[in-house]
């Protein structure tokens, strides 16, 4: 039997808060003050913040895995060192974000256990495969690029410990991003084979990155309490548009083709027998002068929900590897905790 601390951490909008304190809290948020761990805060603020930080921490930890498997195969000493450092940074981000979450009330161990038994989620984007070295380049350029956009907006949030963590994380993300940019540039100035490899990897990551920012905004989100309390500071669609405006023209200039899902006349997404998408040039991708933005085709949101529910290409592998690491390392933690924490599972 496993106990999950997540069970009693729920948002409850019917909850009664002390009116006067709530008003004072809202006023502080309006003045742009940062809330600290010691401060009084509405329960839904604490839970909302915890959920966001925990999800973010989970994503950093799982995000280390797709690139982690390329450490042993990085093609030069510099790339090898940079990749180890990059993956190590992501683990460090996870550590810092779990610390923030722990101080909001959930033990780290409970968070790790919820993660590896699929009770909590992590970012969808890490459920996609990285089958070639060029995927490492694509991830560091596009996924870390998307993460920076997201994290820059989160650094404008209202919770002090999270905001400070975002600032430190972003410093390191800047390195991840430049390293990715450098790899993409190198491959796109390389041999025909390297260019092809890069294009294929770009195809695999462009649409997952569009989904990275989450589903299209519902009206309720923009005015909801998370925006009001500045737990979130930008909407999904705003960030997605920013991403396209920055990366689409850069990719085109590099000679990359930007593709979308092939759909039939009714708009139904066409797929290969193995379920993978069939890519076709995104005809909607061009600047819209009057709106000062780039037009683009929406990704397949059905796929997004399938992946969220655990049906993505690699959900099982990612969670499985994290669980392997947890179970494999349990004896070390038992030893340092200085107290028995139960017998190891016999498959260890």
């Amino acid at each position, binding site marked *: *039997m*496993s*106990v999950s*601390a997540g069970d009693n951490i729920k948002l409850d909008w019917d909850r009664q808060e002390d009116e006067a304190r709530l008003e004072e809290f809202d006023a502080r948020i309006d003045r742009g003050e940062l809330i*600290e761990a*010691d*401060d*009084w805060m509405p329960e839904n603020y604490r839970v909302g913040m915890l959920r966001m930080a925990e999800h973010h921490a989970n994503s950093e930890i799982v995000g280390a895995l797709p690139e982690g*498997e390329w450490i*042993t195969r990085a093609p030069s000493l510099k790339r090898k060192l940079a990749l180890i*450092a990059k993956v190590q940074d992501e683990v*460090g981000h996870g*550590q*810092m974000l779990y*610390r923030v979450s*722990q101080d909001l009330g959930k*033990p*780290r*161990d*409970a968070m790790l*256990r919820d993660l*590896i*038994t*699929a009770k909590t989620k992590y970012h969808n984007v890490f459920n996609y495969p990285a089958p070639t070295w060029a995927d490492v380049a694509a991830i560091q350029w596009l996924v870390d690029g998307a993460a920076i956009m997201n994290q820059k907006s989160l650094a404008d949030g209202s919770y002090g410990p999270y905001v400070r*963590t975002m600032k*430190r994380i972003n410093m390191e993300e800047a390195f991840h991003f430049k390293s990715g940019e450098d790899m993409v540039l190198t491959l796109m100035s390389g041999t025909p084979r390297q260019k092809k490899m890069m294009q294929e990897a770009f195809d695999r990551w462009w649409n997952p990155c569009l989904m990275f920012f989450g589903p299209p905004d519902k009206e309720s989100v923009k005015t909801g309490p998370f925006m009001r309390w500045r737990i979130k500071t930008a909407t999904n669609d705003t960030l997605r548009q920013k991403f396209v405006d920055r990366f689409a023209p850069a990719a085109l200039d590099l000679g990359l083709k930007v593709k979308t899902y092939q759909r039939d006349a009714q708009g139904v997404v066409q797929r290969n027998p193995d379920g993978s998408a069939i890519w076709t040039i995104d005809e909607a991708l061009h600047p819209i002068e009057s709106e000062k933005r780039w037009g683009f085709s929406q990704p397949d949101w059905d796929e997004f929900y399938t992946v969220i529910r655990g049906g993505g290409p690699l959900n*099982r*592998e990612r*969670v*499985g*590897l994290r*669980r*392997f690491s947890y*179970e494999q390392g*349990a004896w070390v*933690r*038992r030893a*340092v*905790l*200085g107290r028995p*924490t*139960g*017998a*190891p*599972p016999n*498959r260890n």
Partner: protein
Amino acid sequence: MGLSKVRDNIPYYSDDLSTPAEGDLRTYEVFVQTERGKPHTYCGSVDAADDEMALMFAREHFGRDQECVQVWVAPRDAVIRTDYDKDLVFRLTDQSYRFAKGYNVGMKWREFREQRDYDEYKKEDLREHF
């Protein structure tokens, strides 16, 4: 050629964990000094079993990849703090009397000295503390 045997054969279990919750290690606050002579600044926290482990973790996590000459760790519960709401820290009443800028001597000097002499005299003032 694929990955090492282990990575290629990770099993997937969907059942709950059979081990009970482990609980967390002790939290330590970490401070780093980027240069000799500069103040130590708070930079985050680590969880560790004891002081020795905390120092090792803090060094590798916060000390190695940016300039750092010393790392301090302290158990969180050894850091005694005031309460934001209950404890007043900064005095709220007028305390201009305890700041240099609270004394407007320039006007008064004018009665006694030429501006030039006063300016010369003023050069040695600790301007940054006004």
